[in-house]
């Protein structure tokens, strides 16, 4: 019997508990325990992916009970890919974040790592499970940990952002739970495969329709689809760097995975597309999300906020692709889960590096970055090009599938929205590149920057507070002097940059070995 599916979820859970206990012996220990736990989980995820590609879907019976009675973990090609993505990003971020955590939350770093691991446990569990209620329990863990970790961020506005997120997140989770309740009343089962079989016989039922709408709405709120996105920008930009870098690429993508899982495995695509006729409306919603996200990103003057709105825009891509109703669109959406996670992770890694050196990333703080932090900026440029969709990078390929899917479905408005948002992203990123490259550094006598020349006062105060009165907070090194982030941070960024190129070069392989077999 292969225990790897259980180990990949349990390793971070055990790691979290031991890290919590070890903190009473020596504070440094908990970081190393967390690192080991994530490495074990990552290894297990890769081995599961390998087995699933070779031998097909993997089932694991919790407590040994057969599926509809007990809970099962069911890992097919889609989960396996998402699981590897989550564990790898969480592991790399742990390597990259140790210095940021020391800088931002020095007094309670061990608890931060415990919470971080529990968050990852939630994400891995959500992706691995084959049980509808178990999914809810694990969403609860991810939510609770992310509320806490976001509130640990920005001293002035982190709490309010987290409170806002709690209110909206709880509504989303309860919608999902209510939907599961309706499903349980009508089917008597909680196992996804079992529910899917029973639902085939009762597709006309109004209770099933209600269940579907409630589940999907709940997941949309959690993934911040456009009109339900209001919590996301503040929550992600005020979170501590070490956490923002893992929550931004993973949380929304995992929720997109849950949506695709509900659509494909539980309710069935034929029910959604042929019986309900909701697809057109949802694609229009996705178009609005893409355009709104792109244009709101255009009006931001803070790099973190801008990236947060780009996430809102990218969610529109994936939702739209999944609802186009053809294999090409779904392929694009699934491929974009992988690609967007990599690109967002790279962008937030770069932003984290800049914050580590300069404390804040308002546009007025960026000048001179290319000469001061060339390696970080190389990664940032690569990820930016990938978001825009420039060919050798992975972003191009998922957009290509999405556009092809849109043409096949006759959804020209979706294709147009994709192209417009790519242009807007190009404008956005070249604006940032321009400021970083051409605008004169603040140390120069002829210092003038678009936007406010002086950083806003309260961020200064927060910076001082965190760094324990560090005199460097808010001031910049003189122009032309290298002031690069620590090696651990750069190494993670380098690896992700390679992954972005590799995911682009091997896009065909990924589609042929993972996504197409899954869709058949």
């Amino acid at each position, binding site marked *: 019997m292969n*225990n790897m599916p259980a180990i990949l979820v349990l390793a971070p859970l055990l790691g979290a508990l031991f890290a919590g206990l070890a903190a009473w012996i020596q504070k440094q220990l908990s970081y190393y325990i967390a690192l080991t736990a994530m490495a074990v989980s990552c290894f297990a995820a890769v081995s599961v992916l390998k087995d699933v590609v070779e031998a097909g879907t993997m089932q694991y019976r919790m*407590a040994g009970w057969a599926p509809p009675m007990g809970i099962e973990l069911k890992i097919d090609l889609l989960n396996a890919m998402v699981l590897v993505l989550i564990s790898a990003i969480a592991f790399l971020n742990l390597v990259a974040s140790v210095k940021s955590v020391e800088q931002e939350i020095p007094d309670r770093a061990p608890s931060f790592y415990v*919470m971080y691991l529990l968050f990852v446990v939630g994400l891995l569990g959500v992706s691995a499970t084959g049980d509808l209620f178990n999914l809810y329990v694990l969403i*609860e863990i991810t939510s609770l940990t992310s509320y806490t970790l976001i509130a640990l961020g920005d001293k002035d506005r982190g709490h309010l952002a987290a409170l806002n997120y709690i209110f909206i997140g709880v509504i989303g989770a309860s919608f999902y739970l209510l939907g599961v309740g309706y499903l349980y009343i009508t089917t008597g089962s909680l196992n996804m495969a079992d529910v899917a079989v029973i639902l085939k016989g009762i597709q006309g039922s109004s209770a099933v329709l*209600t269940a579907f709408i409630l589940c999907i709405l709940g997941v949309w709120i959690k993934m911040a689809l456009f009109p339900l996105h209001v919590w996301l920008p503040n929550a992600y930009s005020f979170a501590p760097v070490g956490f923002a870098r893992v929550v931004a690429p993973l949380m929304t993508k995992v929720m997109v995975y849950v949506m695709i899982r509900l659509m494909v495995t539980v309710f069935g695509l034929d029910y959604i597309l042929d019986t309900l006729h909701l697809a057109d409306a949802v694609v229009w919603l996705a178009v609005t999300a893409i355009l709104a996200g792109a244009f709101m990103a255009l009006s931001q003057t803070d790099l973190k906020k801008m990236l947060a709105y780009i996430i809102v825009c990218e969610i529109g891509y994936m939702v739209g692709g999944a609802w186009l109703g053809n294999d090409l669109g779904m392929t694009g959406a699934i491929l974009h889960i992988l690609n967007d996670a990599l690109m967002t992770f790279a962008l937030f890694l770069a932003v984290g590096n800049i914050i580590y050196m300069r404390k804040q990333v308002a546009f007025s703080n960026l000048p001179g970055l290319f000469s001061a932090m060339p390696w970080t900026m190389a990664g940032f440029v690569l990820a930016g090009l990938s978001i825009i969709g420039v060919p050798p990078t992975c972003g191009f390929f998922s957009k290509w599938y999405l556009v092809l899917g849109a043409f096949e479905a006759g959804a020209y408005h979706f294709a147009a929205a994709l192209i417009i948002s790519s242009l807007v992203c190009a404008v956005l990123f070249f604006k940032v590149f321009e400021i970083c490259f051409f605008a004169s550094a603040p140390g120069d006598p002829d210092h003038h920057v678009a936007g406010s020349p002086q950083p806003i006062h309260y961020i200064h105060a927060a910076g001082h507070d965190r760094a324990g009165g560090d005199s460097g907070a808010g001031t910049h090194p003189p122009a032309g002097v290298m002031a690069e982030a620590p090696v651990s941070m750069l190494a993670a960024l380098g690896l992700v940059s390679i992954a972005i190129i590799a995911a682009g070069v091997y896009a065909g392989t990924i589609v042929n070995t993972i996504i197409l077999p899954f869709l058949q």
Partner: protein
Amino acid sequence: MKFIGTVIVCLTGGLLLYGTMDLPDWGDPGSPASTHLSDYYIEHIMEQTQVPNLVTAVLADYRGYDTMFETAVVFCAGLACFLLLRDFRPKKDRYFRHVPTGVMLHFKNPDTRMIADNEFEHMDKDWVPSDMIIKTVCRILIPFIQIYALYVVAHGDFSPGGGFQGGVIFGSSLILMAISYNLKTLVKRVTEKFLSIFAALGVLIYVGLGVGAMVMGGHFLDYGMLAPLLPSDPGHIRALGMLGVEIGVGIAVMAVMVIIYVNIVSEGRHDEGL
């Protein structure tokens, strides 16, 4: 804005009402929820697990994986309170009472140290002397509440109860101590270190039993595999496994209850509060 809110609320309400149209009748014995899996549980639980309380068997065995994460959620809640509320900075204003005379001292400088610690007790600004009746009654009650909590944990597989309920009762007995005496009394007896270790240990007992089953060659949480380790009737081993995880849950819930209470009432300072 208010108008849009009203419209959304009406739409959601309408959707929920629409959904009820095809629901089975109230208490219908032929409904899917009471025929699909319930029959299996009712017919097989006694022979498979030897636990007379079906709810406990489903909760701690068939769906034990869920319950493990629910315990982790409780642990998370405690940790969240610690992370967000705990305040290690010393308080600026401190008050001391000279016990023999009842004279109050007010320190405005946080660096001042008290020398005669035994004769002075640390207190808060709106301190009132503990009421003797309340103190005495609670002192008598608390041990009984705790025994009852242990009973609820231990009898989870025979009667309503279990780790969550028992843990809450035990935790509330400690909170009662803080309310009837003062927070200092509780914090002195039940330290922060003790509580944090117990919160993690409780979840660890649960996960550990599962991992134990995995090491013995079974699936995760398959208590039947623990039979060679325990000198007991192999048929009864699942009930023992459930008791084990209930104890873990009880410990974690107890510790987290107290952590949440202490952090909230003392604004994270762990010195004075309700």
